[in-house]
């Protein structure tokens, strides 16, 4: 499963000067499509928090963070700040997924579809793995059922490879499962 957004840990600090031999080191975890963008994002956020820029700072480390248990399902809570046409808003969203990157990708696509917010207008404040008891949204809570059971209502008939796709079919498909 390849995800568009990767999680990076970026560590950086201001350059040492005569007055400050050992400047404080800052570490951030953020999501970006690649390392270059992650570094840029790091300086963007750090500029807003501390008096340091890329020109008088240095990058110490950048590592990609991978999911520890991609085979278990988790409930992710994501706190975000986004810019709409009229101003900035905070939001809390929940997603069920196997990996945090998958949850973040769901978040970006959902924000784009539901609120028309492009990904550069979204800032992820915090993410957390939420235990089932503390989930707030009904749409995630409805899957917290150990005896979950539902039928697949429509059967979409698909050719098994894209190559066998045809524009015209001889007869109407039968959607009955």
């Amino acid at each position, binding site marked *: *499963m390849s995800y568009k957004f990767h999680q990076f840990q970026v560590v950086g600090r201001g350059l040492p000067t005569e007055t400050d031999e050992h400047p404080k080191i800052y570490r951030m975890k953020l999501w970006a499509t690649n390392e270059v963008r992650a570094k840029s994002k790091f300086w963007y956020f750090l500029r807003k928090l501390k008096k340091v820029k890329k020109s008088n700072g240095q990058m110490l480390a950048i590592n990609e963070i991978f999911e520890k248990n*991609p*085979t*278990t*399902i988790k409930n992710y809570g994501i706190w975000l700040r986004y810019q709409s046409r009229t101003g900035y808003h905070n939001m809390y969203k929940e997603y*069920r*997924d*196997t990996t945090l990157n998958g949850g973040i990708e769901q978040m970006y696509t959902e924000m784009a579809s539901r609120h028309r917010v492009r990904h550069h207008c979204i800032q992820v404040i915090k993410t957390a793995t939420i235990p089932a008891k503390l989930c707030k949204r009904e*749409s*995630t809570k409805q*899957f917290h059922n*150990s*005896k*979950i*059971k*539902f*039928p*697949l*209502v429509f*059967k*979409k008939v*698909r050719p*098994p*490879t894209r190559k066998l796709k045809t524009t015209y079919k001889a007869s109407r498909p039968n959607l009955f*499962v």
Partner: protein
Amino acid sequence: MPFKRYVEVGRIALVNYGKDYGKLVVIVDVIDQNRALVDAPDMVRGQMNFKRLTLTDIKIDIKRVPNKKTLIAALEAADVKNKWESSSWGRKLIVQKKRASLNDFDRFKIMLAKIKKAGVVRQELAKLKKETTC
């Protein structure tokens, strides 16, 4: 017409698209409305969209998200492989695979066998025709 095949923990499904095409997998948990956590003895447990799965009639008795050993043991206990291969759907798939993997000599042998079979059938038909007309 109520539904007979449900998405549930332990349902066996056939993968009908993608890299694992043709494999039998067990639905081990449901992620959300469109995806299930799916497992098979020879693959890493992963997520799969329901659009890639066709549910079968076979269901095994497992708890939500068992570990690999328990899963394999449950599959053996329910004898899924034999049940599948003796079901009409399973048999059809086996025949399809066999037909796709024939070489020219096999096809020649099949042609001879078909001719022989048709000859025997026609003889019997001629016999029956004679009995009814005479």
